[in-house]
């Protein structure tokens, strides 16, 4: 199970937070801060797995993260997930974002967090991996966007 998915930048500003378990807003912010603190002090060439983090998880949970340019993608997962599998999943996620936004950069995530959520929803549902095939994800996302577009134009027409 995935407990949370967080994206924040090099300064710890949250760009997306998806918790699959309920926390109140303050705890969520604390978790983001703590996670950022843990992740950001790590060198570039150390492993991508991290134990600990008092607020989220416990002994069964791990933080698995990847650092792309200005952004950290962090998944908090329990032992039922394959560590390397989740790393691949992050890669798929980022590649999907890249396809959907055409050369994704931090600004895309800043201004279109709702779209990022929609893409993520096609990959992970309720903390469980739903789809790992990038083409399938993009097909579904595109189809929904098309539907949205048709609705908007019909309103304006």
């Amino acid at each position, binding site marked *: *199970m995935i407990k949370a998915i967080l994206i924040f930048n090099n300064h710890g500003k*949250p760009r*997306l*937070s*998806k918790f*699959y378990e*309920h926390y*109140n*807003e*303050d705890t*969520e*912010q604390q978790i983001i801060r703590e996670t950022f603190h843990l992740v950001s002090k*790590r*060198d570039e*060439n*150390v*492993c*991508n*797995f*991290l*134990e*600990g983090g008092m607020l989220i998880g416990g002994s069964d949970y791990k933080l698995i993260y990847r650092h792309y340019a200005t952004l950290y993608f962090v998944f908090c997962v329990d032992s*039922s997930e*394959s*560590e*390397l*599998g989740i*790393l*691949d999943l992050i890669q798929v996620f980022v590649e999907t974002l890249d396809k959907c936004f055409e050369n994704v950069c931090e600004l895309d995530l*800043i*201004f*279109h*967090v*709702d779209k990022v*959520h*929609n893409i993520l*929803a096609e990959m992970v*549902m*309720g*903390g*469980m*991996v*739903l*789809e*790992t*095939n990038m083409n*399938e994800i993009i097909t*579904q996302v595109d*189809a*929904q966007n098309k*539907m*949205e577009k048709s*609705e*908007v134009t019909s*309103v*304006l027409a």
Partner: protein
Amino acid sequence: MALKIVKGSIDRMFDKNLQDLVRGIRNHKEDEAKYISTCIDEIKQELKQDNIAVKANAVCKLTYLQMLGYDVSWAAFNIVEVMSSSKFTYKRIGYLAASQCFHESTDVIMLTTNQIRKDLSSPNQYDTGVALTGLSCFVTPDLARDLANDIMTLMSHTKPYIRKKAVLIMYKVFLKYPESLRPAFPRLKEKLEDPDPGVQSAAVNVICELARRNPKNYLSLAPLFFKLMTSSTNNWVLIKIIKLFGALTPLEPRLGKKLIEPLTNLIHSTSAMSLLYECVNTVIAVLISLSSGMPNHSASIQLCVQKLRILIEDSDQNLKYLGLLAMSKILKTHPKSVQSHKDLILQCLDDKDESIRLRALDLLYGMVSKKNLMEIVKKLMLHVDKAEGTTYRDELLTKIIDICSQSNYQYITNFEWYISILVELTRLEGTRHGHLIASQMLDVAIRVKAIRVFAVAQMATLLDNAHLLTGNVQRKGICEVLYAAAWICGEFSEHLDNPTQTLEAMLRPKVATLPGHIQAVYVQNAAKLFATVLKSQEGNTDSTAAQETSQLMIDRLPLFVQSANLEVQERASCILQLVKYIQKLQQKDVEIAEEVIALFAGELNPVAPKAQKKVPVPEGLDLDAWINEPPSESESEDEQPRAIFAKEEPKHSRPRHTEVDEKELAKRREARKQEQANNPFYIKSSPSSQKVYQEAPGVEHIPVVQIDLSVPLKVPGLPMSDQYVKLEEERRQKDRADKKKKEKKKRKEKRSGRGKRHDSGPESEEDITPAHMVDIVTEEMPENALPSDDDDKDPNDPHKALDIDLDKPLADSEKLPVRSHRAAEVLKSPAQDGDAESAASQEPKKKSSKEKREKKKDKDRDRKKSKEDKKKKKKHKHEEKGEDLLGGQAEEPVVQSEATSEVAAPPTSTTAEVSDLDFWLSNAPVPSNTQEAATVVAAAEAAPTSEVASGTAPDSEPDEPKDTETEETKSSKHKKKKQKKEKEEKEKKKKKKHHHHHHHSDGGGEESVQNGTVEEEEPLPPMSNYCLLAENSYIKMVNDIQGNLQDGSQVVVSVIFENKCDSFLKSMEFNVLDSLNSKLQRPEGSGPHDGLTVPFQLPPGVSNEARFVFTMQSIITPQKLKGTLTFIVKNEDSSTHEKLDFKLHFTCTSYLISTPCYSDAFAKLLESGDLKCSSVKLEGVVMPFHHLLARICFRHHFSVVERIDSCASMYSRSIQDHHVCLLVKTSGQTVSIDAKCDEPTLLGNVLDEIKQTFSQC
């Protein structure tokens, strides 16, 4: 109206959208909070408007603000409004907002139930999808209960997109509403074989998640998962399955044996690191589960360790980390194979990556031995000095303590050394683990009697230098150590060299700055010390020394009497008064020391942490019974306060007391004594009271600490310390002369408290080993209590509720709640029908009391409904027959069968279940012809016994919905009629590896003709359905074809590939030329002429099985398909492409699926007149009749309905639901078969095939 919409959208243009909000926030970096609060005000205005577009825009912005940490729960109702918009665009925004901020205590969730239900059944798949996604985040127990049935319907949706989401969300539903698990499980299981890989993956995901928490309930799925593992090419699915097997193998070691080979193949063949790693992990789990009796798996261990070493040595830190992680698992059972890589692991301790260092530390835990403990700890102590961060240092500290204290200090040969280490650790700055060190000190001092002298000396030094520990504010945590020091010095004060000095140190004014609980221990133990000092001084002729000591106490204690801490105050004033009284007596020259000592006499024994929980409830004591009747509810409110202060009301208890006679009283007294004896917390402090208990009859129940007397700890006449020295000397005498010197030096070092730094090599440590200079006192536990009982499961774990036996048939109360006016819709799903119907006949499972209540209520309604169900179902063509049978009968046996099976069924159904799994497990991992056939025979012989044993219970495991239905309806009848069952059928079906439903083991107590006779008759000849497909010098292919009952147009061809040459065979591709009627199922995206890659490679001499699915249109005639297998033969130096042509022969038999049928159902079928007749005569058959039947059953997928002497009726069903009935008669060497079937062409072909079978033999 249209105008309004247009107006709304124009309004909207002037509102801020999400992008504007983000931009605004970025432009107001200085006063962000203020800016956002004005934005929130705007949003509130927007939410008040009627226009849904404006509202949706506002909600979208709120979702963003929620991420920044703003509470938006006040807008929950508006979110619901947006969710219920008919436009997908807005709906999606609403559901996203809801998924981000709704949770169980959001009250508006109640309002969403109908909206969500509507969205779930929306014709637009994306509406449904969005609702499912949202629901997965905020599902509550209420929503789960109300929507479970709707979601279950969606699991069979036509769109795979919806199916996979519905399957996945079921896990959340199960968690919130555990009652839904059993009704939904059959369909979930069915989804494991969904044609869409996404849906399949989702089902695997859910079942793995369920099984991870309660693996034993899912053991029966092992064959299915095994099949998926060997056929799936999706790495995600494979990883999940392999992880699941890792959880299952500890429960069933035989499963492990079966897994080793395919897993090893995968390890060799896969290029995906993630998959390789999980395979290694599971192989490790298998090896652990096998570790007991299987020494010959060392090759596998070596393979794993080798692969892991490669990972650890990799430059990729991730692989290094995972390698270490997996290594620590091997360590637990095969420490030897890991220990040889000690160099590598110690090297990792120096890694710059903290995660890796921590993992390496974990490994050290298992790598220590008596030999290398000191060496390793020394290295760790060096790291402690070097470590920068406190977190890592604290981790090191706990690890050192863990390593040393593991399994009862097993590896510590020298406790003086250990105490020195602990003392050294107290010098760490800023550690949080003072209490950990303290508890270790206490534990060692209490349990290792021989070390007390040394420990007390060290502790006295600590107390003397207490200012070093407390001086710095940073060292707050460490002063806990003083707690232990003070207690040890007080409790074992007889070992102190200079008790007066220690007493002085404990009464220093500085002590008052310590935390209260430590001061309290100081005061209490000062009193103990005082007693010791007094005793030593009273012996002297000069009494002034003793009086001085009393004066010291009287001078210093008032400081503590003034303490703000209540406990310190209380103890201090109590002891002060005592000392004052003693002083008075001393002035009168009274010898008082003995009496003061008596205050603290008696040994304190260590008590195991779980001891309290383990104290057994004595016989005759009912903890739930009231001691005094509770006051009646009416008076409770007014009288409660009075009752607390007033004396116990006699009127409640009196009458009960009078009823108790003398005998009863004696019995109770006895019980109480027993209880006290068993209770480690019952204080037996004074020697006199202990004596009383020794005389009491319950004395043998007092837990007696086992002391290993191979080391005589107490030699009369010698004080403890002398004994310790003597032991040391004795040991040294045994040492070789050259080591003597070294040893002595070391001992001296230790005496001075720096034992850790001795530089003697590991050899000398080994010499210490046999000395056993210490004996560890075990912790006290009540008798018969096992410390290892796994009673530490978290009772709040939501998965505990999901620990449900899934193999038991469904009971009538186990239905998902359905809204009544939707009942008709529900009926469309076959599984639902099955559930409803099975309800009529199966025993109820254990239910929560709540459920029981519900059941009562629902029962009538349910029955009425199931009656309706049945009527409606008649419309289903293929179910017609089963329906007629059921007609009026199903209602009546309900009560009866329920009653009988409730008692008899549970144990038996599991027996049958287990025996099926047993069979699968006992099967060879890669069945070759002879092997398989042999096991079949073995099972056939074993079958009768298990049949009888399994009694009346219908076998469980509802495999396919249609099937369970017919099966179960019949079973109710079945019990009544007490029919016989065929063992051949069992044999055959098992052979099919659970691909199909289960037989009903019956026997019902009466001697079944079949079972009785079979044992006398000679065993069946070996049989196998695998026939040769093609063969050349490289490879041999044999195949078997089975119909797929779930899909009337599918058959599964299982092909065993056997490598016959000395080379490696790889890149095998299986291809056939499709005909109009039959097609090979290829993965999506591949062309109609592409071959299928065989998902494994074959090392020399190895065989493995792959399955291929074919789609058939018509099944009434046999067909042949031409095909080719291409593969690469890889030698050391060369590789060549080879191919092998084959002809795949689909006989009509392969479309038949053996289905149980009962004689009355069979009779009805024959009478119905829909069937066409045909017959055939076989001459010269010389085999016994039961062999003949077995052969028909086995080769042609029939089951015996009834057998009377030399005549038997048999039944089978095709995958497209044609009924085939046979009447087989034998006289002499002639066998005549009369057959009926609703499809004459099919029948003709089947008969031809039967004829051919017998002409061959």
